[in-house]
């Protein structure tokens, strides 16, 4: 983990009419950090993440993602980030190779690069024999690991993970987190949004959003200490119970 910021956000705000979905949030994510971005349903997590991915323009505030300005260079940002979620992943009716080719093509990789990447990925995941298998025929755990690899096919500087390991068996889940550790070790910044606190505990630092604001930001250990709690779940519940708009 180095000290250069991969994501740098100050007073970032998003308003929908009278409603302030994201209310002047300020934080930095270091390069190679695993950063947990937590919040209750409706706290503004999704809106904030959409802005960081360049999918929605902020109302005010500043942000720099992967070295690019959010307002002026959103297209460059998109080239330098990867995205994976439990819901959106691979095309079930394409084979592993075809999925790679497609996503590699989207990010402008050459055929040679795609070939090499695919070879490397299959070897790494021990899936060489499954290269031409339809994705839907693979077990869920494999799909999850595979879609993480595909989201990294263009060596993004930052990868956004949206509830990446929900519903996966505990061993596969560990394998998945090992992959995330490896990616972070190689210098990729990992930005995880989740409302599962055990996922949060894997992160280097976590922020917790309540009613559009970041109410806490620190390492899981420091937060549990600060809130005199047994784990992140307790920290989260203490903070989120204060929320006024969770049911709007």
């Amino acid at each position: 983990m180095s000290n250069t910021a991969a994501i740098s956000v100050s007073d970032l705000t998003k308003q929908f009419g009278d409603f302030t979905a994201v209310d002047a949030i300020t934080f930095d994510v270091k390069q190679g950090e695993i950063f947990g971005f937590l919040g209750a349903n409706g706290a503004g997590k999704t809106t904030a993440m959409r802005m960081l991915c360049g999918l929605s323009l902020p109302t005010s505030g500043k942000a720099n993602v992967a070295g690019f300005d959010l307002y002026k260079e959103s297209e460059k940002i998109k080239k330098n980030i990867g995205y994976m979620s439990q819901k959106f992943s691979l095309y079930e009716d394409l084979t592993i190779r075809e999925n790679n080719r497609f996503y590699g093509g989207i990010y402008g990789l050459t055929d040679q690069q795609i070939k090499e990447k695919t070879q490397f990925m299959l070897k790494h995941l021990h899936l060489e024999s499954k290269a031409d298998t339809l994705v839907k025929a693979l077990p869920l755990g494999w799909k999850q690991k595979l879609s993480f690899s595909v989201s990294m096919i263009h060596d993004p500087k930052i990868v956004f993970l949206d509830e990446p390991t929900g519903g996966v068996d505990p061993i596969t889940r560990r394998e998945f987190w090992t992959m995330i550790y490896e990616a972070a070790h190689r210098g990729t910044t990992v930005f995880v949004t989740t409302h599962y606190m055990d996922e949060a505990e894997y992160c280097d630092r976590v922020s917790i959003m309540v009613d559009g604001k970041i109410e806490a930001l620190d390492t899981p250990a420091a937060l549990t200490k600060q809130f005199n709690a047994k784990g992140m779940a307790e920290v989260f519940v203490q903070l989120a119970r204060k929320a006024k708009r969770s049911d709007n």
Partner: protein
Amino acid sequence: MESAVKVERVFKNFQSGKTQIEALKDISFEVGRGELFGLIGPDGAGKTTLFRILTTLMIANKGNAWVDDLEVVNDYKEIRKRVGYMPGRFSLYQDLTVEENLSFFATLFGTTLEENYELVKDIYVQIEPFKKRRAGALSGGMKQKLALSCALIHRPSVLFLDEPTTGVDAVSRQEFWELLRKLQLQGITIIVSTPYMDEASLCDRVALMQDGRIMDIDTPKGITQKFSKPLWAVGAADMYSLMNDLRSDERVDTCYPFGQYHHITFAEVNQEIQGIEKSLVDKGHTNLSIQKIEPTIEDCFMELMNQ
């Protein structure tokens, strides 16, 4: 203890293209009346299929099951009057209001909200302020409470909840489990499934399911007591190289990342901890902490998976 649900050697296969999928392989268990029973396992373990067989929506290939001493195939009509069911991904009618959803499900089961108000009171007071709102405009937590009310409205004797807490935030999950405890006090048998291991400790008894099989059934305490070896939690500043170092150490049997720590077991039951600590320090690890811990359900689940 009289049984509310009894399952005897149930098998269920599906045809998917050319391949046969064995969704359930030889499942047997009993749930006592008034029990809060958890089916714990990842997606694809067979939890939903088991629920569908018990709620008479599917027929097993082999074996039999009883709900309230009624046989699930022949007495399906009678069972349907007595069970409450909240399917996974259940989202109610988005275009009906809270009130309309409730009264629809009430009339479907031949009752009214007033008749069983006592039972759903605790939940209903929380959603009542929004009763004129359409279900589609409710938050995740509120939708889940509304769905629970709908499943409860006819005062079922057995309540089946398929992954009710998936996709819901930590606060709502906690409140939901508190509600289930209150319902249990009213004498309702509750069978709930979840992929989240940490929810297992909230049940009276749990069945750990993986790949169509039940690996173990016991009280949460009973399960953690069966863990075969002493378990240690190790933490350091650089968790990734700590994991690599531990995994390459011959004395270490298993090493799994567990949030802020790695949980490890040793090949030798009486492994001396100083030696391990020293070699980690020698490798340059800082902020090192090693402590013996009680295993969690998740530790046990992984041990069972490896057997």
